[in-house]
């Protein structure tokens, strides 16, 4: 896999407090990547070291395979969680300024900002002062400013905070469009539903340490508790007999024409054994492994700080 940005064994201290302990992260190019962790886990510090805002005390950061020496503001777009604007400045003036300090000249900045102002329906705000905008409007403006210069790598720290559901959907769609256009997106959030929806790969950190890394689907599979969801027609008694000692019914209920059951497999057996024992005794309608949600995994892991890898 091609990694656009890699952090290897990053250590960062604030005084005597170790904020990051041997944290590694590898962000594949062209994907939406989730950086997860509870409050205070060190996500923001990790992002700051990855973007060269603060230097790591130990460790290496590679950008496209080469050591990252300085912040590439023209290629990076960073929307920090704690974000603000100059309140007294006019919207257009401010957007231009923030694009210019990323390295665009004024004409270029204007040409790139305009489509975003149209897409996000903000044209009428151009000459307003920032302090006249609502919180949500400011968030939209900040998003437009972050993406306007077509960064190759976009780092979004809680991009949906402060948005209503309609705007959340709009921004989500724009993020997906950007991914389709080839932008790599690092997405830091607590919102696990959006992680499942958007991210292909994640890294979960807690208390400054790597907890979990890998692709979302593999992680969910690996955290499977061997629960299977089965729909069948036939006798419940026959179903229960077929399970034998290796399986256990977790939940079972009947509908008008069939029965739904959740079955827990004991150690050493899986879907193959379950299927072969059932198929002779009941008429199967559907059979699938019940995977835990990212939310379940997150809650499950945060209590246990030891490292696991997939």
């Amino acid at each position, binding site marked *: 896999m091609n990694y656009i940005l890699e952090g290897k064994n990053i250590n960062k201290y604030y005084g005597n407090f170790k904020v990051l302990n041997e944290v590694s992260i590898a962000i594949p190019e062209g994907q939406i990547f989730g950086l997860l962790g509870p409050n205070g886990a060190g996500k923001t510090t990790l992002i700051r070291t990855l*973007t060269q*805002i603060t230097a790591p005390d130990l460790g290496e950061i590679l950008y496209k395979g080469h050591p990252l020496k300085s912040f590439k503001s023209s290629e*990076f777009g960073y929307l*920090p969680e704690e*974000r603000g604007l*100059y309140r007294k400045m006019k919207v257009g003036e401010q957007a231009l*300024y923030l694009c210019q*300090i990323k390295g665009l000249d004024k004409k270029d900045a204007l040409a790139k900002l305009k489509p975003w102002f149209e897409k996000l329906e903000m044209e009428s705000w151009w000459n307003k002062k920032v302090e006249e905008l609502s919180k949500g409007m400011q968030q939209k403006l*900040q998003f437009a400013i972050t993406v306007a210069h077509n960064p190759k790598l976009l780092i979004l720290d809680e991009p949906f905070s402060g948005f209503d559901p309609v705007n959340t959907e709009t921004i989500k769609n724009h993020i997906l469009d950007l991914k389709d256009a080839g932008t790599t997106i690092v997405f830091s959030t607590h919102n696990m539903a959006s992680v499942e929806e958007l991210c292909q790969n994640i890294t979960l950190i807690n208390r400054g340490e790597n907890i979990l890394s890998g692709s979302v689907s593999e992680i969910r599979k690996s955290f499977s508790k061997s629960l299977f969801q089965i729909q069948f027609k036939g006798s419940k008694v026959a179903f229960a007999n077929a399970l034998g000692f290796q399986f256990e019914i977790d939940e079972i209920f009947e509908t008008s024409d069939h029965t739904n059951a959740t079955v827990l497999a004991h150690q050493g057996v899986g879907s193959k054994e379950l299927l072969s024992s059932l198929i002779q005794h009941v008429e199967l309608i559907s059979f699938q492994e019940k995977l835990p949600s990212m939310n379940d995994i997150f809650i499950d892991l945060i209590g246990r700080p030891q490292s696991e890898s997939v």
Partner: protein
Amino acid sequence: MGTNKIGLIIRREYLTRVRKKSFILMSLLGPLIMAGVLTFALWTSLEESEDQKVLVVDDNYPFFENLDGSSKLTYNIMDVSLTQGEALLEVSDYTALLYLPKNILQSKSGQLIFKKQPSIKVQRQIEQNIQQYLELSKLKEFNISEVDYRRLKAPFDLLTFQFKGAGAEAEETNILPAIVGLVFGILIYFFIFMYSVQVMRGVIEEKTNRIIEVMISSVKPFQLMMGKIIGVGAVGLTQFALWILLTIVLAVGGQFAILANKYDASQVKTPMTELVQQQVDQEQALNLTQLSQKDNLFNKIRRVNFPVMIAVFLFYFLGGYLLYSALMAAVGSAVDNDTDTQQFIFPITFPLLLAYILSFSVFENPSSDMAVWLSIIPLTSPVIMMIRVAVGIESADMWQVYLSMALLIGSFLGAVWMSGKIYRVGILMYGKKPTLREILKWINY
């Protein structure tokens, strides 16, 4: 790319400030107040709102028959008694009654009875008119020509010189350069204080606005800090230039308008000229404008080398400002709001305040040991060295100036370096107000 970014930051810091109403107001009000006070002082001493028509009761009539006033001050000499005169004053449009008694040559005094208090200037003019009239009549009495009399008049000025050893040219001392130096020193104090606090406010604003992290994802913290310092410094220089320019325009314009309107050339005779002269001298010292009323004005300030003073001012303002504003930027980065700044501002600005307070004693004794030391120590040198340079520094002591300048450059470089280190950590710290020890630890982060 880097310099271009600093340029953009400087531009924003500069433009947002000079566009502010408060800046425009300060730029206009500063010189308006300065020039206004000076012009008002001159105006009140010269201006006479009403023409004076004076009824002169001459007990020695027709002795004062030929008494002449001016277009604004007319005398009407009458051979009446004081009582009759007073009666006439009551019914007529005379503004005052001048009573010149019989024994005027012995008593050397007269009385002015007015309806409405005339200005001191009018009283002086009447005094001068009578005095001149009496002098001229005495000249005739003693048969002395006016030309001879003018020759007899011997004006005298005392010029003081400091002894520099036999053979060495003695140095003329003059209070004026010291006053000019004091004014420049106070200006430096004022500008450094005002603009370094603005840097601190700007840093706090960026921190509380939470724009700081957006900014430093595009530029280095050091670029942001230096951009702010330079941008705000440029605002200070702009204000200084505007003040100087506007003060000159306003003061010169205002004073010429008054002088030209009220007194035509023939009117500005000896007594009046002296009065004007005093005024102008004071203004010269205070606002540094070069009002060219009389040549000897320049004689008085010939020891003040204005190009050198302006150059030294610019150096010490910039050096002092860079030093203090870098420290203030560090303070701003370390706190979350204005109220938390107090405990840090005081120790930092204390030397500046001390320099300001001691500048008055340095003004009185510019070559004392204290003055020399304060003019070398970087935190106080900007204010104190201005006064010493204005008074004049002997070539043997020039090393003190060079040392002071070198130390100032060295310490602002040091302050900028240290503050840059504190700043880059401080701007990302929120919450608990850090102690000074914690802040100093940040230097090594």
